[in-house]
Every structure is written in structure tokens, then in C-alpha cells.
């Protein structure tokens, strides 16, 4: 097994740029490992060696001609299956889109191609990104490289397990309530949700339009920053995209210093409901920062209490509308029932067969929440909570540069453990959801292994909207402190997947 796969993307990019190694060699190394180990982690739904290697050769040729397309030129990447790709199936983890090859590339995929980054394949996810474990993928769950009997988080468990298992140096995720950050936390990797609108949603198979945001998944903070720099930017195809530049995240990481840093700890997200080992690691992170002279204050965000409730009205409401297009008329699965195939009966049979249980649950919830007579009580109230959460955060950020919280309340749970308890599943996102409701950036950085089970834990850095650079700065500083302690990023402590048994 090539040692190349254990190197961070930033280092691979340098080796490729210096022509010490070719993109073809790097891409081949990840492909060899992916083809061997995907049966253990089930990170990928779709792998296409020929296309990836062709893209790698193209990247090498460009480099030979003196053209450097991006700071990640030649570095391969895995794409969450929520992004449309015109040369590969794009299913969003759903049966209803099985085999669907879109006629167009999402803006993010286009930018990745323009950056000369070979696409290794499409990663597994909970169906339409509804879930925290990938157990709701129509194609089966991905596994956590730290313990193959445990979940890799969700919905982006395919991307997190690919990166944490060294099946890809980088991946993309989509974060609607924590689908990038939660999987990163439970797999000991790094994941960032940029400010809403920083990355184009054009070609992102929608879950909840006002919450969805695409972001990077990697093993180091710098790698995520480099990737965000590639995929971010204004896109006229997405009316909600931010017209101004947020600056270079890689620059923010490289310049990170502790000077004058003021950090807030959210009262509502620092005590109850967190696994003891996670709480202990979080306190350790704070103590390390204090030791560097960072000022730490407690901030009060009383409306966070209602965040999950509001989220589970807004998300299903928007999803129920976004998912209405899966009707068998223009694309995707079509099931013709016996007897008279009227449009209603074909539509019903297709949706019955094509949608999984969690998707149906949320469509029903959302349809109900938007119904006449209930709108004000449900969707309307939820939008008010959203405003209150934004006000809480505005107030908090008037006192501090960033907020820190544990990313997830527990370490990775066992496959099947919460499958019959949707509410328990929903609570995994308690710390990540406020960022989506407020549109602010948040990222998870590894901060150790919990004492109870030896599994990874993450700390979340939240910054004000548009100040993604501040979030990366603090993420980089925390990473520095731990690398100083461990001698390497946490992921270096992951077990050897090649000998692990699932």
C-alpha cells in the first residue's frame, strides 16, 4: 500500500506541483485502496477508475505545460452523491434516483474539474441527506473506520469514512443540520460548513433550501481551507449565493495566531446531555486555549433550546416541497401498478417504492406543517425561533470572536442502535443545528478520544456570518495545540483498516 494515501492533501498538492509525484500516481494509489477497502467501509456508491485516471493524466499534462489550475491541482477528491455529475449517477442515496445520470454538472463539480482535481467517485449518504448515520441510505450504511461496527455519522458518512479511512484525501459534504460536522466529529476528521451562500447550491440535490450548504471534509484544517477556497464564490445560478468574496481560508489558517482571541462557551451546549468523555475533552480544549492566553467567557443563548423543534418543522416543510418533483414523469424511477395506470396511481406506486421510511416520515411531517390552518402554529413559529436564535448569536458575537461547543453529544454509536428511535437520532445534531438556522459558518476539529470508548470526539468552532476566516483561524489553532501534544493529527491514531474486521 502506497504511503501516499496517508499524506494530507496540502502535502500531496506540493509534491504534485514540484513534480515529485504525478497526479496519476496519487490518484491510482487512492483508487487501489478504495477498490480494496470500500467493501469494509462502504464509503462509495460509485467508483469510476477510468474517468478518475483520465482526469489525473489531464492534470499531469496541464502541469507539464506549465498550467497550475489551483492550489490543489492534481489532488483527487470524493464527491458526496448529493452533487450532480454529468458523467456519473447522482442518486442522493435514494432508490428513486437509482442510475440517474444528470445532464449537467453542479457548480461545485464544475469548479472541482476546473481546479484539475480528479473525481474518485460518489460517496454514500442518508437518503436525500435525511439522517445522522447513513443507515437511511437506500444502498446500505457506511462504516466508521475507527470501528466498523459503528456509524460514521450522517448524512455525509460516505465522505467522512472515505477521508478518515484514507480512501480519499478530500471529500465534499452537504450540511443542512450537521451532515458535514457530525460525521467529521465521530470519525476524527475535519469538516466545515461555510456561511450560507458562500458555496453555490446549483446542482445540489436539495433537502431544505434555506439550510443546505456545501463544504469540505478532510483530515487537516488546512486541507479543508484549501478546498473551500476552490469551491466557494458567487454563482449567478444560485440567487442566494453571496456576491462578495470571503477571502482566502488557507491564508487564514497559515496566519492563525492567538493574539487578542476571545472565545465564547455556550451555556446551553456545555453541560447536560453530553457524554462524560466528550465533556472532559471539551474542557481540556478550553483549558489549552486559556493556557495560551485566550480569553474565554460563557455566553447565554436561551433560544437554542427550541432549535431542534424549529429545525424539524422548517426542514420537513421545505423538503416536502423540494421532493415533490420525484413523480416519475421526467426522470428517475417509474413503477407502474397493476390495473389502470393513471398518473396518480403511477406517482403513488413510484413514491411508495422509491422513498425510504425517513424520507416518507419527513414528507408527511412537512406537508402537515405547511397545511392551511397549521402554517402559523408550525412553520410560522419555527421561523420566529430562527430569528430569535439569530438574535442570540448576534448578542454572543458582540462579545466574542467565535463560539466553541462539543460537535456531537456522544461518540459514534453502534449500527442499528438508534434506528427505531427517530428522536434520539435527531438529538445528535443538537449542537450543529443552530448554525444552519442562523446561516453562520461552523466547523468540527478533532480534540481527542473519549475515555469511555476510545472513539474520536470533535470540537465545533462557530463564527459570525461571512467570517469563515475567523472560524478557520480558531480551528487551525486548536489543531496546532493537539498536534503539538500528539505529534500528528488525531487521524494518525486510527486503526489499520486493512486488518480491521467489520
Amino acid at each position, binding site marked *: 500500500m502506497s504511503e501516499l494515501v496517508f499524506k494530507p492533501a496540502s502535502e500531496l498538492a506540493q509534491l504534485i506541483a514540484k513534480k515529485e509525484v504525478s497526479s496519476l500516481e496519487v490518484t491510482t494509489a487512492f483508487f487501489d485502496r478504495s477498490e480494496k477497502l470500500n467493501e469494509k467501509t462502504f464509503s462509495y456508491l460509485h467508483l469510476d477508475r477510468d474517468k478518475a485516471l483520465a482526469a489525473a493524466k489531464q492534470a499531469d499534462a496541464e502541469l507539464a505545460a506549465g498550467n497550475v489550475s489551483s492550489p490543489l491541482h492534481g489532488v483527487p477528491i470524493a464527491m458526496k452523491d448529493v*452533487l*450532480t455529475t454529468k458523467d456519473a449517477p*447522482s442518486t*442522493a442515496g435514494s432508490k428513486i*434516483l437509482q442510475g*440517474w445520470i*444528470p*445532464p*449537467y454538472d*453542479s457548480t461545485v463539480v464544475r469548479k472541482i474539474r476546473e481546479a484539475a482535481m480528479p473525481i474518485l467517485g460518489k460517496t454514500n449518504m442518508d437518503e436525500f441527506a435525511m439522517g445522522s448515520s447513513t443507515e437511511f441510505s437506500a444502498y446500505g450504511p457506511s462504516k466508521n473506520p475507527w470501528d466498523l461496527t459503528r456509524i460514521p455519522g450522517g448524512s455525509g458518512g460516505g465522505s467522512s469514512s472515505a477521508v478518515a479511512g484514507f480512501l480519499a484525501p478530500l471529500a465534499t459534504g452537504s450540511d443542512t443540520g450537521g451532515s458535514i460536522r457530525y460525521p467529521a466529529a465521530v470519525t476524527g476528521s475535519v469538516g466545515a460548513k461555510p456561511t450560507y451562500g458562500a458555496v453555490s*447550491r*446549483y*446542482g*445540489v*440535490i*436539495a433537502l*431544505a*433550501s*434555506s439550510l443546505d450548504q456545501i463544504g469540505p471534509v478532510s483530515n487537516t484544517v488546512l486541507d479543508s481551507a484549501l478546498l473551500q477556497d476552490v469551491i466557494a464564490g458567487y454563482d*449567478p*445560478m*444560485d*440567487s*442566494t449565493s453571496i456576491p462578495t468574496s470571503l477571502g482566502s481560508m488557507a491564508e487564514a489558517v497559515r496566519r492563525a495566531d492567538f493574539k487578542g482571541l476571545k472565545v465564547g462557551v455556550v451555556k446551553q451546549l456545555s453541560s447536560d446531555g453530553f457524554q462524560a468523555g466528550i465533556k472532559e475533552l471539551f474542557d481540556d480544549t478550553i483549558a489549552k486555549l486559556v493556557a495560551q492566553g485566550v480569553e474565554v467567557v460563557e455566553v447565554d443563548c436561551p433560544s437554542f433550546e427550541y432549535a431542534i423543534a424549529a429545525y424539524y418543522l422548517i426542514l420537513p*416543510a*421545505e423538503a*416536502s*416541497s423540494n421532493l*415533490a*418533483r*420525484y*413523480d416519475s*414523469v*421526467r*426522470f428517475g424511477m417509474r413503477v407502474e401498478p397493476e390495473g389502470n395506470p393513471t*398518473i*396518480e396511481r403511477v*406517482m403513488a406506486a413510484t413514491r411508495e417504492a422509491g422513498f425510504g421510511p425517513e424520507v416518507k416520515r419527513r414528507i408527511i411531517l412537512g*406537508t402537515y406543517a*405547511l*397545511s*392551511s*390552518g397549521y*402554517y402559523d402554529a408550525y*412553520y410560522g413559529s419555527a421561523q420566529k425561533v430562527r430569528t430569535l436564535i439569530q438574535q442570540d448569536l448576534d448578542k454572543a458575537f458582540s462579545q466574542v470572536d467565535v463560539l466553541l461547543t462539543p460537535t456531537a453529544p456522544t461518540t459514534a454509536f453502534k449500527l442499528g442502535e438508534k434506528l427505531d428511535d427517530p428522536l434520539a437520532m435527531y438529538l445528535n445534531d443538537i449542537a450543529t443545528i443552530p448554525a444552519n438556522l442562523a446561516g453562520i459558518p461552523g466547523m468540527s476539529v478533532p480534540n481527542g478520544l473519549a475515555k469511555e470508548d476510545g472513539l474520536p470526539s470533535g470540537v465545533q468552532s462557530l463564527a459570525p456570518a461571512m467570517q469563515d476566516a475567523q472560524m478557520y483561524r480558531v480551528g487551525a489553532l486548536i489543531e496546532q495545540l493537539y498536534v503539538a501534544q500528539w505529534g500528528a493529527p488525531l487521524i494518525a491514531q486510527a486503526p489499520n483498516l486493512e486488518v480491521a474486521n467489520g
Partner: protein
Amino acid sequence: MAKDQLMPYEQAIEQFEVVIGLEVHVELNTKSKMFCGCANEFGSEPNTNVCPTCIGLPGSLPAVNKKAVESSIAIGLALGCQIAPTGRFARKNYFYPDLAKNFQTSQYDEPIAFDGKVDIELEDGEKFEVLIERAHMEEDAGKLTHVGGATGRIQGAEYSLVDYNRAGVPLVEIVTKPVFGAGAKAPELAAAYVRAIRDMVKAMNVSDARMERGNVRCDANVSLRPRGQEKLGTRTETKNVNSIRSVENAVRYEIQRQAHILAGGGSITQETRHWHEDRGHTSAGRPKSDADDYRYFPEPDLVPVVPAAEWIEEIRATLPENPALRRKRLQGDWGFSDLEFRDVLNADLLDQVEATVAAGAQPQAARKWWTGELSRLANAQDVSPDELAITPAQVARIQQLIDSGDLTDRLARDVVAGVLAGEGEPEEVIEKRGLKVVTDEGALVAAIDAALAQQPDVLEKIREGKVQAAGAVIGAVMKAMGGQADAARVRELILERAN
């Protein structure tokens, strides 16, 4: 289908007060669609003007067409509406195969324009004020074709085809407040209102305004209540009435149908109804309630439309003259009788007559050309007069030649024929065809002599006071001269000979 029982119209009006409400959909003539860059074009091959956005593919997103917003604001201003400083799009959720996303991107509680009014004057001069509730932006759906059934309707069809070329075409829906007090004139008022909207959007050039192509479509709401009753009656909504005459007929039909039911102690079902132009009646569509649950919510994929006040004023400054006011002004300027003016309007010739007058013709002469000879020729070619290959300036020039005595009416018609045949400007046609009035008196006198020789008793009759006897001789002279004589001069010469 059982035939509806109708109450005689006068009786219905006597017993019931009519309340109408009109929803007019105007398709804008922007180059591209409402939320994507696809061509907004009528008559293309099915499903050729489509992209991921307008066929609702997963991952696609809308982006607002600024020109469509501009046209919508212009319509709002022309309706005397206020323009919302911030307007939001909303999703109207319902399933139908012609609706790609299974929701229509529309506006709900924040329309772009609201609270306007339109002044309508009926043919008899009675004036009504129709209050506008709102005008909002939305996208059109695709077009369904049902194949295999006898009627072309979905019932009985073997399969249906969908053309998404129209999906996403920008629409402005104009909704009136309930219109009271029109009584027996409610159908006429409804038709006049739709005509006014059509003329308005056509004059503004924001829509092609061709009703036969569905550029302007009307849904007519009708309810009746016994005279003196406060509470509004149950309404029906007759959908997609697509000609002005049909609007009038459909409203009249609904009044008579509902009156019969109510007078018999029955009740009206709140429903949509379809107007059948060929058979002149409406039939029941689907039941509709005020609580139709479209699960509206703000469109999260679009940011609010916030038109700057300066932009609104710029648009206001470009508005053309209100068509009703323009008509009033032109009728006054030209001194046409109501009947004459109505002929011009009904034939849709206002622009032609105005341009011909502007090119120097007398209004009456311009009118006669367009409503007379030119309409006849257009009719024969099965085109509209404005599609004839002759310009108002050419018409005006020909009229000038008549006025100066260089052409007779008969010769002028030949000149027109020559212009239409592509023989060039009127002067060139006259030259090529030799169509000059004969002014050589010697030739005229010779021809008159010859004609009188054939009809020797004519001069005697004239002397006896029967001047009309000259007609036969004039006709013979004109025939002999190949029409190239001035009939008035011929007549003068004959009368001189009689004295």
C-alpha cells in the same frame, strides 16, 4: 352531458344581483423565461426550449429574470397600483404533470403590485371603475396534449404528452376585487375589462397579447345573490376563457344557469367550470373551496425582489399613453362619429389610421382606405390589414394624388394593387402602368360625342331637368377612356353640352 336549464336573461337580472371577479393571466414577451435562460418562444418543437431549471431536475435552481420584473412593475403602474418595496416569491404546491417541480413559483402574500383601478367605458358611454386587488408574478406551466380520446380532454385519453417549452414562461396575474352594480351589463363589462387589459399590455409591448395563442387568458368568477341580500352568493370560476366574445358569453351563461338553480331552491356548487366555445355553454370542472390547500410558503431559493424607488420611476416614465385615453383623444382630433370610430377599433386599425393621418392624409380619407378597400383586400388574402404590403405613408401618398386630381378613385385602386404586387412606390406604379388621369379635353369631348351619338335622347332629358340621365353617358365615357378620366369633369362637360 345533461343540458343546463337556463333562466331567461332579463328575468335573471330582475331577480338577482350579479357579482363578478376577473383573473387575467398575461404572458410576458420577454426573450427568456422567468427563472432560467431558455427562450420564451411560441411554436418551437416540443421540449426544445428546456433546461434543468424549467423541467425541475434535481439540484436545479431558479434565478429571476429582471426584464420580467420590469414588465410586471410596468403593468402594475399602468393599473394604477402601488408597487411593493419588497416582494417575495412563494411556492404554490400541487401535483400536476405539466408542473415540472410540482410547485408553481408564484407570489402569495407579497405581490409586486396591489390596490389599483381601471376605468372602463362601455359602448353606450356608461362608465365603471374596476378595482384591482393585486398583480403578481408567476411562471406558466407546460402544455398537455391528451391523445386517443374523442374530445381531446384527459377523460378517455389513452395517453398524454407534455411539452415543457411553456414551463417557466413569465406570467403576470391580475386579480380584480369583486365588481358590483353592473347589473345586466356585467357580461359586457367583463368583456370590456379584458379588452382593456389586452389593449394595455399590447400598447406597452410587454406581451404579444394574442388571445388565440393564450398570451392573455381570463378566469371569470360569477356569483348571484337575491336583490337586497348582503351576503355574497357562492361563486363559480370559469377557467381559460380565451376570447373577448367568450368572456361576455360565458358570464352571461353562468348568470342564467345559476339563476335557474337558485330560483328552483337549489344551491350553487363552488367549482371551476370550463367554457365550451363551440357549444356555448360551461361544464363542471373540479370542486374548489376557499380552503384549497396549496401549502404556500416563501420560496427559499430566491431572495426578495426589492425594486429601487428610482427604478420604479424610470419604468413609470416609459409607460405609453393609456389606450382608453388615447382613443378618446384620437376620436376628438379626427372628428369621427362613434360609429365610424368603432369600425376602426373593431377592425383593430387605430395604429394604421393614425400613421396614415400622420403621413399627411385627411382622417376621413385614411379611415375609408383602411376600413374599406384595404380591409377588403386583406380579407381576400386572409390576412389582417396591417399585414398587407403597403405602408400608411404609401396610402397617404396615393390619397394626396387623388386630392390633387392626378388620380381618380378607380385609378387609385389600381395603384394600390400595383404597390401590393410589389411594383414599387405609387409613382413608379403610375409610371409603369400608365395610370394618369386624362386631362386632354379634346379626347374627352370626342369620347362624349361618341357616347351621345349612341344615346341621342340624353341631352333632351337633361334639359327637361332629369340631370341623373347624364350617368349613363358618364359610364360610357369612363369605359371608353379605360377609367383614366376624371368623372366629375366628364359630367361638367356633358351638362355644358345640354345648355
